[in-house]
């Protein structure tokens, strides 16, 4: 793993150097493509408002939206597994919803939930709810049939089958859904802010773009990317915590 990190560091360094060199030697106008050094300077100059105000606002939307999606997504997946009627009623809509361009739906949510925090949270939920429901439900449904039979021969009740087999075997599916949702959540919050906001990195970036402040725009994009990566990493950490057997997979005999 250490070796991989070093290689990634080298490739990033080369990428940044080439970028910087192209900007300087070809005289690219900074309002089209600012050199990375200008982005860093801009990030430093604007740190108080970028990190203190806008990153904080976006983080709030992301975390609240994602949390609500997790709670309701898991609940709906459980309800569908438990009740055939709920499954029959709801599942078709979940499949259909996958084909709807959610960006197009976002203004509707802003219309309904307003231009304040709740509107952005609603858009974030719109982006993150379905990957969580679909993956959790598929995970719960994909229980190994032979394992199920074995548990039944042991005299397991339905409740025991759920807690000892279905739930743990669905965890990897749930977490892959959550990883998708974690990265989508940043996109959702950003779009929510584009549609109307007075703070947040999406709002900041759009305003910087309108004013041709490319270094500031890139600085906000950089922060949003880091936020997405951090969330993704965090979900991976939580997953490893809940499934310790995955750590040992590399040491198979």
């Amino acid at each position, binding site marked *: 793993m250490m070796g991989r990190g070093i290689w990634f560091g080298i490739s990033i360094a080369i990428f940044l150097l080439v970028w910087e060199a192209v900007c300087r030697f070809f005289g690219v106008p900074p309002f089209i493509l600012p050199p990375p050094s200008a982005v860093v300077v801009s990030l430093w100059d604007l740190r108080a408002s970028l990190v203190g105000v806008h990153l904080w606002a976006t983080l709030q939307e992301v975390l609240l939206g994602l949390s609500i999606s997790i709670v309701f997504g898991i609940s709906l997946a459980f309800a569908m597994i438990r009740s055939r009627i709920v499954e029959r009623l709801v599942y078709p809509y979940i499949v259909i919803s996958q084909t709807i361009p959610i960006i197009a739906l976002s203004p509707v949510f802003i219309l309904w939930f307003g231009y304040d925090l709740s509107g952005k949270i609603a858009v974030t939920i719109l982006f993150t709810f379905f990957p969580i429901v679909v993956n959790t439900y598929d995970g719960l449904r994909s229980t190994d049939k032979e394992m199920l039979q074995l548990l039944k*021969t042991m005299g397991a009740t339905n409740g025991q089958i759920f807690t000892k087999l279905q739930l743990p075997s669905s965890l990897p599916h749930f977490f892959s859904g959550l990883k998708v949702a974690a990265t989508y959540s940043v996109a959702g919050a950003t779009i929510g802010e584009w549609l109307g906001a007075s703070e947040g990195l999406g709002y900041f970036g759009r305003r910087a773009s309108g004013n041709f402040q490319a270094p500031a725009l890139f600085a906000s994009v950089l922060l949003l990317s880091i936020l997405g990566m951090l969330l993704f990493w965090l979900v991976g950490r939580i997953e490893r915590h809940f499934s310790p057997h995955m750590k040992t997979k590399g040491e198979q005999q």
Partner: protein
Amino acid sequence: MGEQLAFADVSFSYGDKQILDHFDLRVEKGEFVSLIGPSGIGKSTLFQLIAGLLEPGQGEIRLGSVAVANRLGQVGYMPQRDQLMPWRTIVENAALPLEIKGMKKKEAHERVRQQLPRYGLQDWADSYPAQLSGGMRQRVSFLRALFSGAEMMLLDEPFSALDGITRMDMQEWLMEKWQETGSTMLMITHDIDEAILLADRIIVLSGSPITKPIELTVPVSRPRTASSRNQAGFLALREQIWELLRQERQAATKPLRREA
């Protein structure tokens, strides 16, 4: 000795396909019986009936000489593939049937830990199944089955996924465990040598539906070892079973051709 398992006049169908037709079978307490027969004849159905996953259409199945309506949770089932849960440690896997019976986790784990040294698994107690070899995993699976129902053990081709050498080791190991536990064992296998080496009695299943199984007593004295395979009685029985299975296969392929 008494009766441990009995099928009395049992008939069973899967949809239109009749698997068992007035089938009778009796297994004594502490006996080791091998079931052998062509694939697809319904051996697994037989196991599912014994375990209680299926109910007979007609007739009764007795466990320990009483007719038991709900047999779930009463037998130890050792499946073909070990079916260990990858997210549970070895102790947690083996303790599963105890937990299902309502025992406290701590107590269940304690009981498993006491048994592990006899299975050569004490150093692997807190490892995950992916870290163990195929043979070790089957030993865990066996231990788990014992905790589920030691009196009547159903072994469903337990060694078919193992390599040849491990398989022979495991056969001797199973003989040892059978002596130790005194469990009644019913084993499905496709391997004639394995069937003879381990069993007191071999049941050759034939016909569709299965009506009258052919029962053969193994004339090889115990204790047996790998070299028991060279005894005259062993070889003669192997020849006899092979002949029975060959006849069965010829009989089974004829109607197929007619259909085609």
